[in-house]
């Protein structure tokens, strides 16, 4: 199942694709994308359902770390390939947009 690629989804994918093997947790992702954490969570859930992203709880003692464990997300192998393709498609200008630009430039 391919998730709907909204601007927010693309922002999350872009952040994860920067270093595909790297794991990011909610707050890091929110800082890198500029999205609020509550907005990023449903996106990550959808990407996880689609098999593009995998996640795990950090193995840490909350008392020693003085904070709750983090949930880390990273792209799966297949997810990285599909996300790169999706990003490339998103960067390609659409026909309608090109026609709009042409009209603005006065070209018939």
């Amino acid at each position, binding site marked *: 199942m391919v998730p709907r690629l909204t601007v927010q989804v693309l922002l999350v994918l872009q952040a994860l694709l920067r270093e595909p093997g790297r794991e990011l947790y909610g707050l890091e992702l929110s800082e890198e994308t500029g999205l609020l*954490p509550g907005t990023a969570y449903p996106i990550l859930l959808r990407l996880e*359902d689609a098999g593009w992203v995998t996640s795990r709880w950090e193995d840490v003692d909350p008392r020693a770390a003085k904070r*709750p464990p983090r949930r880390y997300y990273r792209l799966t192998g297949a997810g990285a390939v599909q996300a790169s393709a999706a990003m490339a498609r998103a960067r390609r200008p659409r026909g309608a947009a090109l026609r709009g630009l042409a009209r603005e430039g006065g070209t018939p």
Partner: protein
Amino acid sequence: MPDPRLRLRRRRAGMIVGAAISSGVAIWAMVQVGNPGPALVILANAALITAYWPRTAGRDGFWPRGGGRGPVFRGHKTDGDAGRAPLPLRWGPALSLASRLMPRDPGRRWLAEANSVLSETDTGRQRAAICSYLRSAPRLVVTMWARELSHHARLRFRRPG
């Protein structure tokens, strides 16, 4: 960071004061109007106190682990106060309530992740972050229940072989 016991006492006191005020108003309304409808407010207060009575042992709810008869009355597992930065008192219960509207496991995961992120968020940005979690909650409730129901339906209608 305030003493966890003090926080607990404040939460309990807030709960009792809130319940006492609204129950008082309900009783007054019942006497004035003569309609038993406001009794529902008193019952709702009792249910809320029972479900959300703050405890230190890692599980909110009035009855200890394993007690109670339904998912709400069995209490809600939390990670206690271990390493958790204090959330604004108004919002912690709101997040907990939202998580209870979700299916059990996804709801717990959502709440745990929200607590984890919020505990590391700057105080100045915490409010916006909490609001973003609460804003996205209704849609998540619907999505999660739809997913849960479709999962159960698939299991139920799957033909053997």
